[in-house]
């Protein structure tokens, strides 16, 4: 049996090695996604607002309005000179925002009361990100509030505040990573996401050769030579578990070594619990290969295999938080995401790579993936017995 199984597995690996499209889908595509998405989203976890081009139109020459502009420049760099056609530039996105300081702003900031009338306008590019829009508005309000507070304090007998004192000093904000765990970066987020996506792409590759074997009578020939159903299924599953292992090693290596050379952040594996990582990867591979076997046994033609596999993959990725992070989804979509095996895989990897979790943290996700894999294997066995010669 081992020699028979090995020869069938060898055939499977040779077939894959000679299929450039299959290799590209399994290895190159997720690798490209990791590189491109990590570089594109590099600043999402450490946004730099200083690089946004902006301009100021000040209709108030008072001291406090001038001070507000000075303070704003410290965090956002110098503004561009206000062009005559600034509304048009704003609409076309060449200017990201314009601060319009209305007359009476300095007077308003000097009053020891809360304002009831807008004196500052924040006008932005219509395509500006919603979170960034809110951040700019909040920062502007906070800055104006601080200037008003400083002015009010200067009118009292209280001692002047120390040079580094600020309302911002009141708030300490940080992402809670494990003590020795990695810092959240786009690479740390993207490697798990696209690794899971790539691992599930075995669906299309595995089904393709299976359909060919069935259509050409090769499967019937193997059966007539007395090859058991179990050996045929195992000869499909085991090589693709190996493919998943190579994918994982390659994607992690890309994150660790290639990304820093391309100007991105490096994937940090410092403090990672390796046992937990292996458990997460093993359970994802089992689920992906199980699903691939079901699809391979269910489809009848190359056209069905070529369409169904990628469609299923992209849908699971869209629903499962691979393409759009789950935390930005509305509640209903987040509940739906919890039904996607890709989401279980992603959460398992994030638990290890982002949160520094151990086996206990991965176990709930791995258990779901394991149950899913078992169900898929049973279904594949049933379908194969029913349809194979």
């Amino acid at each position, binding site marked *: 049996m081992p*020699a*028979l199984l*090995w*020869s*069938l597995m*060898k*055939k499977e690996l*040779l*077939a894959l090695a*000679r*299929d450039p499209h299959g290799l590209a889908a399994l290895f190159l595509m997720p690798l490209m996604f990791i590189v491109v998405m990590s570089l594109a989203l590099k600043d999402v976890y450490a946004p730099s607002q200083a690089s946004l081009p902006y301009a100021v139109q000040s209709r108030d020459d008072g001291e406090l309005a001038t001070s507000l502009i000075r303070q704003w420049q410290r965090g956002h760099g110098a503004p561009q000179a206000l062009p005559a056609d600034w509304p048009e530039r704003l609409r076309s996105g060449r200017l990201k925002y314009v601060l319009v300081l209305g007359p009476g702003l300095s007077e308003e900031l000097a009053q020891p009361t809360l304002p009831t009338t807008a004196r500052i306008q924040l006008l932005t590019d219509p395509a500006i990100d919603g979170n960034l829009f809110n951040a700019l508005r909040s920062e502007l309000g906070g800055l104006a509030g601080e200037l008003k507070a400083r002015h009010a304090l200067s009118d009292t007998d209280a001692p002047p505040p120390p040079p580094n004192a600020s309302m911002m000093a009141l708030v300490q904000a940080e992402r809670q990573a494990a003590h020795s765990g990695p810092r959240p970066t786009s690479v740390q987020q993207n490697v798990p996401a696209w690794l899971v996506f790539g691992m599930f792409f075995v669906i299309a590759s595995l089904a393709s050769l299976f359909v*060919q074997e069935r*259509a*050409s*009578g*090769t499967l*019937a*020939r*193997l*059966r*007539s*030579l*007395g*090859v058991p159903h179990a050996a045929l299924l195992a000869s499909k599953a085991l090589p693709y578990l190996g493919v998943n292992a190579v994918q994982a090693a390659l994607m992690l290596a890309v994150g660790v070594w290639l990304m820093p050379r391309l100007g991105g952040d490096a994937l940090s594996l410092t403090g990672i619990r390796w046992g937990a990582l292996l458990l997460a990867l093993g359970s994802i591979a089992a689920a992906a290969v199980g699903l691939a076997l079901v699809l391979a046994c269910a489809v009848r033609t190359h056209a069905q295999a070529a369409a169904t596999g990628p469609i299923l993959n992209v849908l699971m990725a869209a629903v499962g938080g691979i393409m759009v992070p789950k935390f930005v989804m509305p509640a209903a979509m987040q509940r739906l995401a919890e039904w996607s095996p890709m989401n279980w895989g992603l959460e398992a990897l994030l638990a290890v790579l982002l949160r520094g979790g151990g086996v206990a943290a991965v176990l709930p996700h791995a258990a779901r993936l394991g149950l899913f894999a078992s169900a898929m294997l049973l279904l594949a066995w049933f379908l194969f017995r029913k349809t194979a*010669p």
Partner: protein
Amino acid sequence: MLTLDQLSHRYPRARAAALDRVSLTAERGSVLGLLGPNGAGKTTLISHLAGTLPVQQGEIRVDGQPLQQVRAQAPGRIAVAPQEYAFYPMLSVRENLACFGAVSRLRGARLQGRIESCLAFAKLEGHADVRAERLSGGLKRRLNLAIALLPDPELVLFDEPTVGVDPQSRAFLLDAIRSLARERGAAVIYTSHYMEEIEAIAERVVILDQGRVIRQGPLEALLAEGGPVLTLSAPGADTALLARFGELRDDGPRLRLRLAAGNTPASVLAALDAAGTPARQAEFGRGNLEQLFMSLTHRSLRDDA
């Protein structure tokens, strides 16, 4: 060697049986030709022998043992060369043979020996390292044959093994299959739509139609069954004139005249000459399987059932 006794099979929800009480035998050292139009039951019969369909009714025995038992003990004793190119196109000829050889439970030196032997038998030595997808149709057929012979089977079933090949490859395949029976002593079952192929290599013939054996026996005996038939090509011939000599049948470009007692081919040809419509071609003395099949079923062998 192989005995089918009253074998019947009906597919789920099918109105008619695919095989209806089929009985036949195949002997070592002999080629059994299996003839029948599409839907006659050939594929169902082959699927049974390949072990991919269970026996519902009747028996299949190999040297007195039930087929299922033989297949469980030594599946390589019976090999099937299917009509399709049943191998891996992306693997080379040698890789395909190595894969199917290992699947046939051949190991080590025995496996290598069988690979070389089958490469030589199918004259594929010069193509051993070529990927199967790059072979011509004829070479692909030879690879199909070589794979079937890997386990050195005692019974080989060929299902339309010459479909889509050039005349040279067809001649080579027929010679090779004939030598399997006559020189290596294998029992061969050969199915084909090509009557001339069956006539060229089979010693015995079984004619299947609609799941039943409608005639079987030695080839020569079946060919002699047609009786005194004169096949003619005579443009413009008066059919009423010809009908006076026996039973006339118009097969398109040719006329088939079963001569009534007392009539001879010479008298027919003389009458055609006298009528000014001389025969351009005439054949007499030996029927063929196609004629026999048509006389039995009133249909052509290549008609869809």
